[in-house]
């Protein structure tokens, strides 16, 4: 049989579309579509924020090899009046190590001799001299290559890990006021100064090189090998040797039991993770509120969308009956309805995804500008939400349409 379909205007889908979509409730669809756009944008934004902040929580600096916290005693008036000692006693150390969350305990080893740091004056930069202190922890807790961190007896250069706060103090306080060049975390490796050690057998000179910066420990770290050797060689025995800071290796530094233990014993920690866990708590609340509002809007908009769809189906009830009487199947009608709804939902979700991504990158930019080290999470995880939403919305609409078509057909058969 000869078909000359090319001469015909309009495919089967077009004809059915003309019949079934001819009097759709435009306003209701527009309003519910905008509602879906708004709601899903908020939900995607909230979920995206959650992912970003989780990442911040996870990504502390990588200098330290294991999960740990550093604790110290609170300094009170008694310490100031020298009536009490801020060091940990043997008993206290034993008690801490008994805690279930403690995998390993390692007191910080302090210097038992006098340290002075200085640079010699040049024509442009005046010399300085300051007294310093060093502390040391076992190498296994640090993620620095041996070649940079290893100290062997006889070596005149001492590798040093510097607290990030000191660097900030220098950069934004000292350097700017003295007209000195600022130093970034990357260029700090080039910074060196002289060290003068005064101990039981006189004065010794070393040089010091800053090999890394950390925000996790508020102290100046040197290799344990150096510290043990130096304490042995220069240490003044009557100096107080009880450690003032203790490093606790743990499975999870965000464990709430740690926080409550520290609180109970009156200790302090500067651990970022624990600070973050408080921040995370507030962020979680913000996230829940934002997502709930977004979800609520989505739900209302979805209800309205479904109602609009029902209005459309009821308005075309007579046409649907006629088409079914001509021999069309449910699925052929369903396909025509669903095809355009899927396109509509796809556009809505695509736009809300783009909007939420714009919002997120704006927030990430602010975070990065405020000094957090943050890499933008891969887009895949964010694409997951709109895809799931799309499938969910299409399925909801499909169920609605099928139900209505069957109801309309049942009327036909009365």
């Amino acid at each position, binding site marked *: *049989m*000869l*078909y*000359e*379909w090319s*001469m*015909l205007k*309009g*495919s*089967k889908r077009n*004809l*059915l579309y*003309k*019949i079934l979509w*001819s009097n759709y409730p435009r306003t209701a669809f527009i309003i519910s579509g905008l509602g879906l756009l708004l709601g899903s944008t908020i939900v995607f934004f909230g979920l995206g924020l959650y992912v970003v902040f989780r990442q911040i929580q996870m990504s502390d600096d990588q200098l330290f090899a294991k999960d740990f916290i550093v604790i110290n005693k609170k300094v009170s008036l008694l310490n100031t009046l020298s009536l009490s000692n801020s060091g940990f006693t043997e008993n206290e150390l034993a008690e801490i190590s008994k805690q279930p969350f403690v995998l390993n305990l390692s007191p910080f080893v302090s210097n038992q001799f006098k340290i002075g740091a200085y640079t010699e004056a040049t024509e442009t930069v005046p010399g300085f001299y300051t007294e310093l202190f060093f502390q040391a922890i076992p190498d296994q807790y640090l993620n620095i290559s041996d070649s940079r961190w290893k100290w062997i007896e006889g070596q005149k250069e001492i590798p040093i890990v510097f607290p990030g706060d000191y660097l900030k103090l220098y950069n934004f306080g000292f350097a700017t006021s003295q007209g000195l060049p600022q130093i970034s975390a990357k260029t700090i490796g080039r910074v060196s100064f002289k060290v003068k050690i005064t101990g039981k057998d006189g004065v010794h000179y070393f040089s010091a090189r800053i090999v890394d910066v950390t925000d996790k420990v508020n102290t100046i770290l040197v290799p344990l090998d150096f510290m043990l050797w130096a304490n042995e060689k220069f240490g003044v025995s009557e100096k107080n040797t009880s450690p003032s800071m203790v490093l606790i290796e743990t499975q999870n530094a965000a464990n709430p039991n740690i926080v409550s233990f520290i609180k109970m014993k009156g200790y302090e920690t500067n651990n970022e993770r624990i600070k973050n866990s408080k921040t995370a708590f507030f962020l979680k609340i913000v996230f829940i509120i934002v997502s709930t509002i977004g979800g609520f809007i989505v739900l209302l908009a979805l209800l309205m969308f479904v109602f609009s769809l029902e209005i459309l189906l009821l308005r075309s009830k007579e*046409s649907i009956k*006629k*088409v*079914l*009487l*001509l*021999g*069309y*199947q*449910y699925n052929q009608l369903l396909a025509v309805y669903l095809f355009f709804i899927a396109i509509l939902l796809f556009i809505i979700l695509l736009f809300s995804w783009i909007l939420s991504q714009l919002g997120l990158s704006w927030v990430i930019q602010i975070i990065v500008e405020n000094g957090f080290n943050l890499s933008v999470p891969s887009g895949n995880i964010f694409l997951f939400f709109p895809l799931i939403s799309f499938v969910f919305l299409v399925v909801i609409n499909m169920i609605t349409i099928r139900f209505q078509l069957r109801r309309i*057909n049942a009327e*036909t*058969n*009365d």
Partner: protein
Amino acid sequence: MEIFLDHVIPHPIRDIFSSESNIWNKKLLLESEKLYQISAASGVGKTTFLNLIYGSRKDFEGSISLDHRNVHQLSFKDWSNLRKNQVSMVFQGLSLFNNLTVFQNILLKNQLTKQKSPNQIMDWLNILGISNLKDKPAGKISYGQKQRVAIVRALCQPFQLLLLDEPFSHLDKNSAEIALQLILDESNANRASILLTSLSETLISDDFFLLKL
């Protein structure tokens, strides 16, 4: 298509049907490839009768079988397939889509069945004298013209049974004869039976058997 009715009484006319009816509450076999004219006054169930057989009404007592299949056991899908491949109908209200053109109305059926070529359809529109209305919306043509569109649409599928609900009520004698000839030609080609309803008891053609409701 063979149709067997066993004591069928539609609910709407349960109290008013006549005992002289050849159809209601009787055993009745309508043989395949035969032509039947069902004549009765308005309101005694001519349209209901056709709708029962077309499956668009199910409110009746008794049983109806199409080719030995009880209609109560047919699923919606079965009905769709029947209406696509075996049973065609010119509805009383015609069931055209007013926002589609004459040609699109016919196409809607033909695209489902892929039965006739556009040229064939145009030939028929020509024969019935409405080819000039091809691109007019169905809502803007007269009832008599609509009847002819509905007849062409009904012929755009394979069928073993053709149900015609007062198909010539708004046609002049000449047009009705042309339309009837077209219908008879096509039903012969399909070896189909016809059930045609009319107000008048005068046989529309000698080929028809008369049944009274």
